[in-house]
Each structure stands twice: as structure tokens, then as C-alpha cells.
């Protein structure tokens, strides 16, 4: 077999090589040209974290917020559904969409996609990265950091002071009460232990987190056997309003009938937006848990 006239193929091959060499030599750089001077306080803030959404809406007027996350108006997870509906844009962590909004401050969290954060950093738009939300103190720090970055430090301090006052109030009221053994249990058998806000929220609400006895750090899957051995006297699950699927499942599970919380019917649902929040709404979650754990201290008529 003979082949004729494949020279153009060599040109293409050569072209490929040249392209690759050019890629080798070329070093991408920052954009040159006049930067618009940074605006302070920022007027087009974009948040890429639900916690930042909740905090922002408490600190900044809506006209200064260009976009929130797509979760902000989702009633299953958000505490700020109504307020968030007034903000025109909802975004995901997608660098193009974020930049298209011409933000002057982007707030991301430790959980935000690392590659997207790296891309956004190269564009020179101010970026505030919130730390891990692993404790109530970290939540407070994040509130103060956002306040600082958007020029609303006073409001942020006031918000933190309000949080601390209400937490202190709950702690005082439950201080004398016996501390029940509590387990927060989520779908799939995941429980939260040391280094989580849930652990601190249970402690603040006057309970003992039994996940600590099992040596759980952060989130871990717990087997049913382990759950029976741990034998918590209260089980907390999170759920959407009106849907108590997980609670019913646990109560009906024949394998768990010896667990004290199941036997006594002390399996309680806390609204999911409370259970998953890492903004100032942790206070509401602590109050909700305290009412569940210590109904004697919080009469059912009391509403705040």
C-alpha cells in the first residue's frame, strides 16, 4: 500500500506543535488598563454562600445587593425567603455569571468551589472569603467580617450583641435543668459531633450531644447498631414544615424500639432552615432546641 501527498497533514501537525510551543512560552497575566477605583462601601455585592445571604440581608439595604445564591429564596433551606425574593438575581458559583453582574464585592465561603474562587481572584474584583462555620464564635466572626467589608461594622456589632444576649438568656434559663442525652440524626444516618455548630447549639440549649460519646468529629455516618448502643433520650431530626418523614421512619423502625427516645416518643423535628443555618439564625435554632429539651422552662404559650 502506498500513500501519496500527505504534506498538508504535516503542516497541520507542524501547526499543532507551534500552538503547543506558543502555549509553553505564553504566560497569562492580569488585565492591563485603568482600574475603576474600588467603591467603598460596595454597592453591587454578590454572595455565593447561603449564610452570607442571610447575614447580608440583615446588614445591607437590598439595593446594594446585586445577587444572592440560588438557595436564598428556597423555603426548604433558607431563613430569608421573603427578603430574598426582592433581590433580582440568584446565582450559582459560576465565575462567568458572577462577573457578568459587575460586582464590586464577592462573598464566598470556605465551601465554595475552590476552582471558581481561584478564577474569581484572578479578575481583581474584591473577594471576601468567610472561614469555616464550625462554631458559634466562627459565625459571629463571619458576621463581623461581612460588616467590615461592606462598611456596616456598627450594624454587625449590634447583630452579634443581640445574638450573644439571646444565647445567654437561653443558657441561663436551662442552667439548672437536667441535661438530656441528645442526638441530631439526619437522613442516611449522619450525625454531627465535635467541631460543628449543631454540637454547640445542643450544648447551649441544655443538652448533651451523645455523638461526642461515639467520638464523632464533624459529620459521620452512624450505624443502627451504634445508635441502639448510644441510646439517646432525645433524637432531633430536621425536616420541612408539614413533612415529618424521617421522624415517622425512626419511630416505626422495629430495630430501634429499644432506644429511649423512640420508646418515649421523644423524636422531634426542627425546621431544616434552622438546623442547617450558620448565620445569626443559629439563635433561633438554639431556642427551638431548648424548647424541645426543656418544655418545663419554656411554657408552650411563650412566643417571641
Amino acid at each position, binding site marked *: *500500500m502506498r*500513500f*501519496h*501527498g*500527505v504534506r*498538508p*497533514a*504535516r503542516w*497541520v*501537525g507542524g*501547526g*499543532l*506543535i507551534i500552538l*503547543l*510551543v506558543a*502555549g*509553553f512560552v*505564553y504566560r*497569562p*497575566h492580569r*488585565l*492591563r*488598563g*485603568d*482600574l*475603576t477605583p474600588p467603591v467603598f462601601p460596595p454597592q453591587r455585592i454578590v454572595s455565593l454562600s447561603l449564610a452570607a445571604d442571610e447575614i447580608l440581608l440583615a446588614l445591607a439595604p437590598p439595593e446594594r445587593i446585586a445577587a444572592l445564591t*440560588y438557595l436564598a429564596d428556597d423555603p426548604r433551606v433558607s431563613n430569608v425567603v421573603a427578603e430574598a425574593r426582592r433581590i433580582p438575581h*440568584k*446565582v*450559582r458559583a*459560576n*465565575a*462567568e*455569571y458572577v*462577573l*457578568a453582574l*459587575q460586582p464590586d464585592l464577592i462573598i464566598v465561603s*470556605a*465551601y465554595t*468551589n*475552590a*476552582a*471558581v474562587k*481561584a*478564577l474569581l481572584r*484572578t*479578575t*481583581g*474584583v474584591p473577594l471576601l472569603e468567610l472561614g469555616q462555620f464550625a462554631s458559634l464564635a466562627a459565625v459571629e466572626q463571619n458576621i463581623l467580617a461581612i460588616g467590615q467589608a461592606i462598611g456596616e461594622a456598627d450594624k454587625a456589632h449590634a447583630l452579634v450583641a443581640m445574638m450573644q444576649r439571646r444565647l445567654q438568656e437561653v443558657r441561663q434559663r436551662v442552667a439548672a435543668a437536667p441535661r438530656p442525652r441528645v442526638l441530631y440524626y439526619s437522613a442516611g444516618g449522619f450525625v454531627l459531633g465535635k467541631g460543628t455548630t449543631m454540637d454547640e447549639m445542643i450544648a447551649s440549649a441544655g443538652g448533651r450531644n451523645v455523638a461526642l460519646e461515639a467520638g464523632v468529629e*464533624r*459529620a459521620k455516618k452512624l450505624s443502627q447498631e451504634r445508635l441502639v448502643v448510644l441510646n439517646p433520650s432525645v433524637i432531633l431530626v430536621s425536616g420541612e414544615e408539614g413533612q415529618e418523614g424521617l421522624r415517622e421512619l425512626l419511630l416505626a423502625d422495629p430495630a430501634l424500639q429499644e432506644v429511649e427516645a423512640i420508646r418515649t416518643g421523644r423524636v422531634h423535628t426542627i425546621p431544616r432552615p434552622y438546623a442547617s443555618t450558620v448565620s445569626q439564625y443559629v439563635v433561633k435554632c438554639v431556642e427551638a432546641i431548648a424548647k424541645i429539651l426543656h418544655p418545663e422552662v419554656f411554657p408552650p404559650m411563650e412566643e417571641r
Partner: protein
Amino acid sequence: MSMSVVTLPLLRKSVDVRKGNWSLATCVALFLGSMAVAASLGAVTLPLDTTVRLLVKGIAGLPIDSEERAQAAIVYLIRFPRVLAAAMVGAALALSGVVMQGLFRNPLADAGIIGVSSGGALGGVLIISTGLAATSSVALPCATFAGALCTAFAVYFFSTRRGRTPLTTLLLVGIAVNSVLASLTSLILSLSPDYEISRQMLFWLMGGLDGRGWTHVQMALPFVFCGVLPVLLLSRDLNVLLLGEETAMSLGVNVELVRRILLALSALLAGAAVAVSGTIGFVGLVVPHMMRLLVGPDHRLLIPAAAVGGATFLVWCDLLARTLVATEEIRLGILTACVGGPFFLHLLLREERRQRGEG
């Protein structure tokens, strides 16, 4: 005729070389056009001329007006490197497919199907889990290359006897290798103590070009370069290999050595692709076959054509992935599988018919 049945489709169609050249030229033009279109479409759609102007300004480092900065940042810092990464991954996967098909003399060989990509992914997950990937930019592609290389040689060892690789053996070995590697990958994922690192691994494993930028392009370039250049140089030997082992030897080709080099090169290309985008299936299967229809089976034409074709194919797939649904990205692997899955079945049925007809 001593030539194995499965080699025939690779050589059967004799396309006019002149026509092949024209087709190749068309592919190059299409590729360049696709790059420009892909760089101008997205969250903000810009006219083609503005896109090119902003790109040139960005690449050449010319000053940019402040009112155009946001657009320039999108085009030059975010979208264009992603398009480049797509082109590079597509070219690498298609080339690795061509080489494997020629090497195994098997039209269904592809990095995804025989497990080489999964090997790369396992290597990548290992290096990410140790934290080394974060400290050095060559660690990840080196690891994916090593994983792909070991897998390629294992597959070769298990499925090839005296230069022959029966179709079913190769596919079955692929299934076994893929499942072993996937379970090892899951093991590492489930043992990882750090939530952040597991998330990072999962994101990378899912496959796609979401969030890929200049750093990824630069990370993979040396590896792609070291793969493409020798493959281009060895295209003649690939032609000779297809004629059968005895013929190749009589023509003075050191068959075993060439095979090993080609196998390593295809692993290098697949590994580089995996390092950038995670595993993306079927590109190495679909593109070479399409290009064979266009330019014929001569590897001297086919190899550059597959590189250009693979690049074009993935640039378009990625464009669809990021624009089909507004504000939401479709995973790139879903799109390539939608095209590649049916195509794979078509090839499989065709091979079966042929073997029945001739056997």
C-alpha cells in the same frame, strides 16, 4: 489472509488522499471558527469582533478601557482558557483513542472503555488525598499519567497474545479493570478524613471543565506536548503495525518496542486529559471513527485530523454544557456519553455482523 479480522475496518476504506487533505483543511478552519464562537457565547454573549478584539488585547497585554474590563475579564480570564482546556482535552483524548485503536488493532479501544482513564482518576485521587496536588502543579498530571500508564500496560498484558487482541477479551478486561479501579477510588474517597479534600476529589472526579482556567491549561500543556509530538512522528509506524506483525517486522519495525512506546504515549495523553477534566468518556471512540470517514485510515492524515477533530468536538460539547440551560451547567460527561453511547453500540453491532459474516 493472515490479517486479523478486526484490523480490516481500520484499513478498509481507501479515501482519496486529495479529498482527505481538503477535509483536513476544512477541519482546521472549523476548529478555529469554533474557538471564536465558543469564546463569544456564554453568560454574557458578545459580538464575535468584540470577543476577538478583547482576546487579542488580553493576550497581548494591551490596556483595556475601564468600561470593558468586566467583559474582558470574562473573555480572557475565564472563558478563553476554558475553551483552550476543552480543545486540549479533546485533542488528547481523540489522539489516545486513535493510537489505542491502531495499537490493539481494535476499533472499540478507547481510554474510557478499557479503563485507562479510570486508572488516571485513581492516581489523581491518590495524590489529591495526600495533599500533594495542592503544593505542586505537576503532581496531579504526573499521578494521572502514572495511573493511566500502569493500567494501560496491565490491560495490554491481560488481553494481548502474540500481538492479537480479541475484541471480546479487550472489552471484558476493560470491564474488570474499570470496576476494580472504581472501587479502589471509592475506597480512598470513603477513607478520606478531611471533608474538604473529599469534596475536592468528588468535584474533580465528576468530570467537566467547570472552573478550569489558565492554571489548568499550563499544568497539562507539557504533558500533551510530550504526547502529541512523538505520536505525530510515529504515524508511519502505526500504519505499518496495521499490516500485521510479520509484515511490520519484515519492513524493519521493532514491533514490540513501537507498541510499548505507543501504549505509553496513549496513556500520557489520556492521563493529561484526566488531570484537567476528570474522566470524560467516548471522545476517543467517536472522534477517530468520524475522522476515518473523512480523511481515510492513513495515520499520517488521521492523527492530525483526530487532534483537530477531537478539539473541535469537545469545544462544542463544552459550549453546549455551559449554555444549554441558563444559569445551570450540564456535566460535560453527560453530553459526550449521549453521543458516544449509541455510537459505541453501533460499532459493536457492526463488528458482530462482520465477524458473523466472515467467520
